[in-house]
């Protein structure tokens, strides 16, 4: 269970990778990954290639992040979701708020 953040060389793209289950137990780790005042990324990418499952609290965390970074709908990308994770986004219609790739 880990959250890894990396920023592109030109500071424009923030990528956050989530390993394991994206449950409420990740709250503080996840918040730390994006709440860094020194960087103002143009794009934010949540990489879920190593995310095995998400729950409803994860959706709350993602919405929190969107608010904190003041991003419009579709400005944050969620990439490499497995089928089950994808399904949760569809059911909850959050695929309208995030760009699911």
């Amino acid at each position, binding site marked *: 269970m880990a959250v890894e953040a990396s920023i*592109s060389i030109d500071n424009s*793209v923030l*990528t956050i990778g989530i390993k394991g289950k994206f449950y409420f137990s990740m709250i503080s780790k996840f918040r730390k990954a994006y709440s860094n005042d020194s960087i103002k990324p143009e794009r934010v990418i949540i990489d879920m290639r190593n995310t095995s499952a*998400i729950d409803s609290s994860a959706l*709350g*965390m993602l919405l929190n992040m969107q608010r904190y970074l003041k991003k419009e709908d579709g400005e944050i990308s969620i990439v490499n979701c497995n089928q089950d994770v994808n399904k949760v986004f569809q059911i909850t219609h959050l695929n*309208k*708020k995030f760009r699911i790739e």
Partner: protein
Amino acid sequence: MEKILVVDDIEANRKLLSKMLVALKNYIVIEAINGRDAIAQFEKEEPDLILMDINMPEMDGYQSATAIKAKTGDYYIPVIFVTASTAEASLTNALASGGDDFISKPFNVEVLESKINAHLRIRELNKQLCDKNDQLVQLNQNLIHEQELIEHFFESALQKSFLDEKIIKYHMSPMSTFNGDILLVERGPQGGFYMVMGDFTGHGLTAAMGTLPAALIFFKMVKKGAAVGDIARELNRQLNSLMPTGLFFAATLLELNTHSDIMSVWMGGMPDCYWIGGNGEFKNEIIAQHMPLGILKDNQFDDTTEIFNVETGDKIYLYSDGIIEAHKSDGEMFGNERLKEILITEGDNRFEKVLQELKIFTGANDQNDDITLVEMTCNEISAAEVDDEIQEVKTFFLPWKMSMSLSAKEMRDQDSVTELSDMLGSMPMLVRHKGVLQVLLFEMYSNALEHSILQLNSSAKNNEEGFENYYKERELELNKLEDAYITFDLSYLDDRGCLQIRIKDSGAGYKGHVSNDSDEMLHGRGLEIISGLCESFSFTDDGRVLEVLYRL
């Protein structure tokens, strides 16, 4: 003992010579009565040396010698002519017919002896040489055969590469059959593509050996959609344990996302890559941040990747050090600067131009390293078709029921519900539903625990701070909790093809409802997920029981 063939049509001459030979060194002597008989005896007896009369009926000595020499191939069978007349006594005549020497009658025993010895010695040396040669030919054939087999292995392992010309232009010229340079490209499971380009230390088979495991690991990890850093880590770990010290793998690993705008790179021990924009503008150099793969132990390995914001049409140039180290006969090297200069000044044909310039530069000088040049164009690539590995083996299953109860102690363990879903997921009929069941069970459980038992109020989650406080309070209350239970009752309804999940708790009850407009809300999504995943759901017993029907 050597075998000598004596050829003469006159019996007395044969006997005389035979006797002398036996007296000399106890040679095995065989006789032939004319040139034709000599050929027959030669084939039958395989003599080591032939003493040949010249004038004989049916076939003379010259003809016979020519025929015999035609059959010996590379092996040396000395033919010494025995001459009576001085007219015949010339080495020229003897050699012209394919013979090797002559001896005139009457015989001087010492001359005969020394001539025989000399020619047998040559024959022995020649025989050793021919035998060695035969061995070499045989060994070479074995080697070629083995190389063909190995090549087959390599081809099978490497040919899976997705070398689509829309994204990859490449040139690879190995110094020998086997190449220590490697270029693999494969599409990711969600689209986009992965590439590894690298160079094993050394050349030929030694260097090529490492490409096999590297290719297998690469394709396997790409299939799983692994991150570039993780692929690098796995390659490093495996190569480190496989390869002897001193052998390692300099490599660039690269992933381009589906929309071809994000590129992740892990680069170890490779020369700088060049990044050129779609309009020919020089964008950047990409510089290796790591050591080659296979050197560091896993715990020292750094899998940090660099991320670049690229655009469709951007081109990345990768190459092995064979290009910049290519040199003229005076030792001057091609070098980075020359390469960079061509890439910047040339237009769309810069790939071809580099190869042309390289050829002109090195001239006739032999290539002394494997050379690889790759031009990668950022382009959208759709996902590869994924084989569906899970096959429907059975459509009919027996009905069953199971029940599990969690006490407060088990509720404090976050993994309790995971254990239940793992258990269910291992059943053949539920394998395909494991992920969804995990989400479903978790949401049902959270609902019962947080709202019915702990009586937490979801609306507290409506702002960021409240959201975190909510989960802090959850933990606090959970630690204080005693005498509580949550029971799962699961039954497979075979007639309806559904799994019925009933969750009952010891709390005060909670009847949730799915809100219609919760787009902006940070809570209330649990029930939305549950209702979205199930055929039906209903609360009973004042909200202490939630029953859902999940279609398999």
